[in-house]
């Protein structure tokens, strides 16, 4: 497969902190990936739709409001319901370490917390995409 990795960067929930999402989006793009950024306040339905429409290899979601335990698994489940099993899902934001095992179990492949270099995120995505 020669086409560049396609990533949907999404902000689920109501929080407006998109500095991290935008910096990551740009770093992924500079690393040669094709990046689609959804903008703020996306419902799980909208995000799943974007992943399918864009034929994405990876979905990267960012939440800083504390709603991650509710919203991340909800998106993963909806992807499954729509038969999408081959998209790598990662998350980032202000997420307490205690919450991470539960999120991994729910099907988020990795959680990147504050201070993570973008190079680490890029490497993770490159090495773990499923398509």
């Amino acid at each position, binding site marked *: 497969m020669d086409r560049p990795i396609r990533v949907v960067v999404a902000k689920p*929930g*109501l*929080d*407006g*902190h*998109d*500095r991290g999402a*935008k*910096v990551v*989006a*740009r*770093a992924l*793009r500079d690393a040669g990936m094709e*990046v689609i*950024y*959804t*903008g*703020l*306040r996306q*419902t799980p339905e909208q995000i799943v739709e974007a992943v399918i429409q864009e034929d994405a290899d990876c979905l990267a979601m960012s939440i800083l*409001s*504390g*709603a991650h*335990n*509710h*919203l991340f698994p909800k998106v993963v489940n909806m992807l499954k319901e729509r038969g999408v099993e081959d998209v790598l899902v990662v998350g980032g934001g*202000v997420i*307490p*370490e*205690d919450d991470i095992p539960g999120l991994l179990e729910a099907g988020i492949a990795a959680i990147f*917390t*504050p*201070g993570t*270099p*973008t*190079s680490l995120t890029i490497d993770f995505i490159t090495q773990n995409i499923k398509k």
Partner: protein
Amino acid sequence: MFDKQKAAEIKAAAEKWDNGVKSKLERQPERKLTFRTSSGMEIKRMYTPADIEGMDFNADLSNPAQYPYTRGVQPTMYRGRFWTMRQYAGFATAEESNNRYKYLLEQGQTGLSVAFDLPTQIGYDSDHDLSEGEVGKVGVAIDSLKDMETLFDGIPLDKVTTSMTINAPAAVLLAMYIAVAEKQGVSAEQLSGTIQNDILKEYIARGTYIFPVVPSMRLITNIFEYCSKSVPKWNTISISGYHIREAGSTAAQEVAFTLADGIAYVEAAIKAGLDVDDFAPRLSFFFNAHNDLLEEVSKYRAARRLWAKIMKERFQAKDPKSMMLRFHTQTGGSTLTAQQPDNNIIRVTIQTLAAVMGGTQSLHTNSKDEALALPTEDAVRVALRTQQIVAYESGVTETVDPLAGSYYVEAMTNDIEARAMEYINKIDDIGGAVKAIERGYIQKEIQDSAYKYQMEIESNERIVVGMNKFQIQEGSPKGLLRVDPAVGELQKQKLETLRNERDNNKVNAALEALKKAAQTDENLMPFIIDAVRTYATLGEICGILREVFGEYQQSVIL
């Protein structure tokens, strides 16, 4: 501030000195090839009077509380009284937040600052679909006047000043505050506090917008007009650079985009028929405090001088109060690290010094654990103590504008002002802040700075202690504050009870009247106050306005 000949002599001597130093650099190199402020401004090896050549003491600095207010807006500053120590707080239910406020007041805090949860900030009730998972998370959930009564239970509103971080639905929360006061027997004239009410920076950086630009600006000018007559001690807006900086701007961009927004509000109010001196004295500002101490102090000084000039020269304000930039400061959330969180206490201390030496009117200090979660009570106490130590023990409070006259600080104050002015001119060319936001110009400038900053960290050009240098192996942090997920259910139940108990005919009539008024040019404040008194919910009121006004569509720019 020196005569021409003297200045030329000093300049020549400084150049000679610098050349002497340079000749030895090969043997004794400096740590870096170029030195820059956190915002990327190049810093010289040393500063002399030659760097502030042409500065005029009276025109550029003057004395405290004198135009152009570079040195501060009060004649005695902290010799009179300290800044207001105001910790931004709120989470879960009104009951829990009320307890936190009482705790903070007992600990010597001097003003309240209310954090609302995201559904409240975006005008949704707790039982709305989009509220799921968000209720009570980043602030307190307020659905109706009932919650507001609980929030301020036992807190006399004529004795405290309250700042509310609320923007798109600011009119509704202010109306609820006025209604709670009424029930306490406190008249609107006695109320003192601030609503953020700054929608432009929501479009730029913070994201809790609801309505499109035009009706949003109308709501804001409605508030200006209403308060100038009925709530005269209320700060009707807090024009905020804080979130612009958090989104990644430089210090100069923070000043530039904040004041550009300020210009847009003043223009909107004048266009709506208000006299500049009727509303401008109640405009207030909100800035960030980052770690680059001297750059930050210069930033506040530059902002004060530039705003004074704008108000006097551009808007022909006559009342000195219209020209005085009063501001709240919050220490920089984005400067905190999740790694070795204790180090954040030191960062907050530096930032506190910056805000205080820059002449802030009030201050929120972040807690050390805020890169991880909402702050615990213990962490908040340390943050408040940091302010108290700077106030009572550091000595920087004992004279006004203590860094004035530093060649470096004055040169940097000039530099930031000039850079900010350049941006404001550019924004004027685009057609003003609203146009610049709609085009994504301001957002793009901020994003570019944010990306540059991140890349500097990743290349280790910029060191953040504990994050990309001096790291240690750490266990996971203990004792973080967690909001009980049951809060969402609790709020839903409260809403159900409310909808059953209130007089729904009255509610509907008030909402209908609001809808009609929204379709005309009438001031909406009286209608909103009437509606909250009937216990119409925030979501119902904003729902009506959404019907009439529509919703803002974000322009997504990468």
